[in-house]
């Protein structure tokens, strides 16, 4: 009998190597870039009439004022409520919807057209109609966020299902896996990177939707801070919620990246992104 355990002529791919010369860490480059932009802004911004522009230190002062009066927390919390509910609903409904459309020919033929149309349509145009249906309160804000976030998630999930290699499904079939098991154990994990890409795209849109909703329905939250300070020509204060919204989008993006690496670690490993 041949001993087969120790004659592997072929070797496994090398694991992450530690290079001798370390390049500049990414965070340092990002940090330097931000510092440069802030300094440039500070210098240029001071030359401009404060009604038309502002600069970092003035915005920092305005930020501090909003913070100590408690206005900022109230506004942020007010904005986040419809955002979290709408965005959460979009994930909970969008992913199964995408799986359904991608997985079944009939569902694709029946529903695909609405999703494609819904994604391409400027949803701002729907806001007046939504107000007629849902009023000016919390529900309409949730609906706007939900509709803006739903379509990218559904479309990406759908595309992901379509892109699952046929041979992987045949692996399931050849081991006599029932359709539902193939969907859960092969199609879903193979689609996860696409789903996460959709969830990531949707975050930006959901933040936009949240502000649009605050502008067009009952003026509230961070959107209200923007509008009220703009009406008072208080440009520095107006920049505070804008910057917070940007930070929020960036933060949520990294949070999603973290979730992605946790639920689909093989993806980062395959593309080599785990070595950063």
């Amino acid at each position, binding site marked *: 009998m041949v001993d087969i355990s120790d004659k*592997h002529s072929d070797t*496994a791919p090398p694991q992450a190597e530690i290079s001798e010369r370390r390049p500049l860490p990414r965070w340092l480059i990002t940090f330097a870039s931000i510092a440069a932009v802030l300094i440039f802004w500070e210098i240029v911004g001071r030359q401009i009439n404060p009604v038309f522009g502002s600069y970092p230190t003035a915005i920092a002062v305005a930020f501090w004022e909003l913070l100590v009066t408690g206005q900022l927390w109230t506004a942020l919390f007010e904005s986040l409520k419809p955002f979290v509910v709408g965005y959460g609903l979009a994930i909970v409904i969008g992913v199964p919807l995408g799986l359904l459309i991608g997985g079944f020919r009939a569902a694709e033929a029946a529903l695909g057209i609405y999703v494609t149309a819904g994604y391409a349509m400027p949803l701002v145009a729907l806001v007046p109609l939504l107000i007629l249906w849902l009023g000016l309160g919390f529900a309409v804000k949730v609906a706007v966020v939900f509709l803006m976030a739903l379509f990218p998630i559904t479309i990406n999930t759908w595309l992901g299902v379509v892109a699952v290699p046929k041979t992987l499904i045949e692996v399931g079939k*050849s081991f006599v896996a029932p359709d539902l098991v193939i969907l859960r154990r092969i199609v879903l994990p193979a689609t996860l990177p696409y789903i996460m890409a959709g969830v990531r795209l949707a975050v930006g849109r959901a933040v936009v939707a949240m502000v649009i909703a605050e502008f067009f329905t009952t003026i509230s939250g961070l959107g209200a801070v923007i509008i009220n300070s703009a009406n008072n020509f208080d440009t520095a204060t107006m920049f505070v919620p804008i910057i917070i919204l940007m930070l929020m989008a960036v933060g949520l993006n990294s949070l999603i990246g973290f979730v992605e690496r946790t639920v689909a670690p093989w993806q980062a*490993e395959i593309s080599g992104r785990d070595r950063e």
Partner: protein
Amino acid sequence: MGEVSFVDVSKRFSLRVEGELHHVQALDRVSFKVADGEIVALIGPSGCGKTTALRVAMGLDASSSGRVTVDGREVNGCGHDRGMVFQHAELLPWLSALQNVMFGLEMKGMSGEPLRTTAEKYLDLVGLSHSKNRRPHQLSGGMKQRVGIARALAIDPSVLLMDEPFGALDAQTRESLQAELLDIHARTKKTILFVTHDLDEAVLIADRIVVMKEGRVADIMTVPLARPRPDLSIVRGLLEFAETRYKVWRALHDEQTLH
């Protein structure tokens, strides 16, 4: 247990090429038998229908007419009596080597402690117990295909179906895997039907070789090499090896053999 027979199996495809509908006769009344414990190679030029024949036997494709039986039962879809080894292993990338082997077993209804120990036993059989926790992208091509073989063998099928299992590997890895396959066969006595386009591989491994051309069986040859064949480098030097290899080569190139 593990007899396969093809009885007048035909398969027609329709496909549209630049607006024109083409009919392709992938299999044309293919008939041959694989005896219990035998290794049979399906060889032929690309497009000759060898892979289609294997897929029909697996139940991944349906035949247009005729039937394939395994131990007398007609094939109608996939079943645990057949284990498939895919051309590029096709491991699930999110599962470790061990979990990939466990996947097939779970589909067969196994769970708990036996699930793990059985999967470990088969990974050990292909010499991969030390890499059981690696994911597919951390394995070399040869190691991936070993996992693929372990996954198919673990469900203890009566027949192992292999679709050009070593075609994508480098020559050295291919040779060591061919030897391992023969070793596994000596231990498990599984019936093996495999597709290849490699003449040497067909003669080295198979007991009989089915030569296919344009969807038909052009010739069936018996390989006059005794079993076991523990050292393939010796087999390569045998006169019978050279003669059989030449005969198969002739069959593949000779227009006359196609009736």
